[in-house]
């Protein structure tokens, strides 16, 4: 084993940190978060500098690197700011479905716009009364001539109101098994689409949820992503990839809150001493640092598995669950260490905390991850 980042990884990390330090402005982030908006200029710059599509292949203007490098950037960006960092790095949410499975034409048409930060993408998977179980998807796509005609309702679609394209999981076959579903790309603004119920978010406020209703929405047959009938499997693959990205996000969120708490306790005095001199403060920091360190190498290992084709769903679930729990614990303690200031918006850690909760729940709260892990750990019973 070799735990050294290679030269290009180190450069990427450094470039991401410098970009974030230079461009991420606290006041702007706080203000735009309230409005649930992403700063367009920074999004485009991230794209231009190659951060968003770092793990995309070069034929679609991507960086040609692995998911490992994407995770490094997620971590670094979120360390600087958990809300903006995640919004930038997930501006291409679900576009990985196209990247990994799409036809050449579709990829070349869509992905360069995602890579350069001009197109926000999203995935529309969940439906009412289904929880996280996608086996019973009821949104349908029926072939009609060369087109697909889509009907149904998707809920809690991230960036649902700002995305330019949706990757939609549809039933394309009367067959009610998971083999009867397909992923279809739908461009926002097509006739028959209505976006509503844009929700105020608890965390991740630059990626508001919305519900999307499709009423006889017509898209060309070439918008099919991957093979017909592969939709369920491809969605699960995407979730696996996305969970690793979320682990990187959570890791950076934890680290960023830790940084701020450490700075604070080193300068703040109470009862005649620096907070950092109290054993209990010291032990909290030691705990936080240890948890981050453990989450970090599990996350890196998992990203490495992905890039080396050794990934399994349960490994991604472990990394996501562990890193997100770490983020919750660390950000929670960071608030506590800052005392009353920790609760105040301008001291930032409060939004790291809310964003940690977003990371913990999004793409399945712990119980869902445990179901996935247990399936694999236990295997088939005799």
């Amino acid at each position, binding site marked *: 084993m070799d735990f050294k980042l290679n030269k290009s990884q180190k450069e990427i990390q450094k470039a991401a940190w410098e970009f974030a330090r230079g461009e991420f402005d606290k006041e702007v982030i706080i203000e735009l978060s309230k409005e649930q908006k992403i700063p367009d200029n920074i999004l485009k710059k991230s794209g231009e500098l190659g951060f968003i599509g770092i793990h995309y292949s070069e034929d679609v203007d991507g960086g040609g690197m692995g998911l490992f490098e994407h995770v490094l950037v997620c971590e670094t960006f979120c360390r600087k700011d958990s809300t903006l960092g995640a919004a930038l790095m997930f501006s291409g949410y679900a576009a990985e479905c196209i990247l990994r499975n799409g036809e050449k034409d579709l990829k070349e048409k869509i992905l360069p716009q995602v890579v350069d930060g001009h197109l926000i993408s999203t995935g529309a998977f969940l439906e009412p009364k289904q929880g996280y179980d996608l086996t*019973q998807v009821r949104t349908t796509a029926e072939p009609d001539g060369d087109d697909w005609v889509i009907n149904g309702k998707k809920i809690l679609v991230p960036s649902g109101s700002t995305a330019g394209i949706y990757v939609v999981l549809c039933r394309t076959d009367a067959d009610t098994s998971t083999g009867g579903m397909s992923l279809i790309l739908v461009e926002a603004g097509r006739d028959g689409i209505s976006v509503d119920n844009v929700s105020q978010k*608890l*965390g991740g406020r630059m990626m508001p949820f919305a519900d999307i209703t499709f009423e006889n929405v017509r898209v060309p047959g070439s918008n099919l992503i991957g093979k017909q009938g592969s939709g369920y499997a491809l969605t699960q693959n995407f979730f696996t990839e996305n969970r690793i990205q979320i682990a990187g996000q959570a890791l950076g969120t934890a680290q960023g809150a830790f940084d701020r708490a450490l700075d604070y306790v080193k300068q703040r005095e*109470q009862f005649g001493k620096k907070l950092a001199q109290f054993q209990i403060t010291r032990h909290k920091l030691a705990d936080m640092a240890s948890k981050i360190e453990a989450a970090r190498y599990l996350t890196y290992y998992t990203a490495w598995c992905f890039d080396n084709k050794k990934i399994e769903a349960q490994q991604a679930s472990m990394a996501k669950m562990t890193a997100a729990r770490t983020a919750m614990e660390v950000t929670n303690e960071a608030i506590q260490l800052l005392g009353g200031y920790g609760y105040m918006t301008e001291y930032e850690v409060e939004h790291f905390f809310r964003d940690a909760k977003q990371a913990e*729940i999004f793409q399945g709260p712990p119980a869902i991850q*445990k179901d996935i892990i247990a399936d694999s750990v236990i295997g088939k019973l005799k």
Partner: protein
Amino acid sequence: MDILQYTDEHKAFRQRLKTFLANEVTPHVDQWEKDHIVPKEAWQKMGKKGFLCTWASPEYGGMNGDFLYSVIVAEEMAKTNHTGLCSMLHSDIVVPYINSFGSDEQKKKYLPDCISGDIITAVAMTEPDAGSDLAAMQATAEIDGDEIVLNGSKTFITNGINADLVIVAAKNPAEENVYQAVSLYLVEDGTPGFKRGRQLDKMGFFSQDTAELFFSNCRIPKENLLGQQGMGFMMLMEKLQQERLMCAIGGQAAAELMLEWTIDYCKTHTDASGKPISKLQANQFAIVEMMTEVKLGKAFLDQLIAGHAAGENVIVETSMAKYWITDLDNRIASRCLDLFGDFGLTEDCPIARGFRDVRVMSIFAGTNEVMKGIAAKFMGL
């Protein structure tokens, strides 16, 4: 087997309060959360109905209620899922200073309006650089003829914008012993030199007007000294126990409320197979574990309330209850949200507000670390 014995009068009072809150508070909560303040009229309505300062003497317009009335109000207010109409702070923390330490003139002047809701009160202890460390207080009070001149700034002041009357802690700069330097002063709204800063932008407690207060050469008459000169520290220590107990009571009610909503959600929402998600074993265990902790908190708290009402020395237990129950609130908020899934990430889920609101409870009225330090000290460790 109930630990606390509520009489029929108590029960009728609780019922009247519930009705009042359902009609006059709950319908407005979302608006107040958006406004980041509660209108003064809401306080007056509450006062007129007899729900403020229930312990106060009939002489001033009070109902002379026992401590259980305060408990009832604290519990029911917590169940409105908002924190703006912070009557607990007014009724059971601030006004009792006037009642316990005020002169007859002060009591006559202020108590009736405090009880009727025409005066909203606040207490200004915490300072930007002091936090839970009262000994590090910087605000000064100097005597100048018949007047006292206040200088300094206070922060995290609940009811800071609405307050008509503020009890301000300040130090006599001439007194070297910090524990004898602090006195308490009554400062009325509109006193020259008393300014309110911006309302603080925070994670939760949106409807509550938490603010900074500034005093620059703020002159008040000598008669506005509350209690004895130099006894401020002692008075604060004496009253902090009830303040922390009230936090625990509010926290307990909040935990019960969040769990109740979550159980209700799990029983009425199904998974893809049509089965209520309360039937999933992992969810059942989560709920049972949370309910167990809630019941533990309740038993401990009820015992403590009985002890406090009987005048026992319960400083260790009060510190323990404050820290454990407010930590419990955070645990429960987070764990309940998990059961809601992605819906829990939107503010449409009521627990989202709870999650943001309860996070400050382990910090205010003395951080939970301060609580543990107090408990350790009084346990003789």
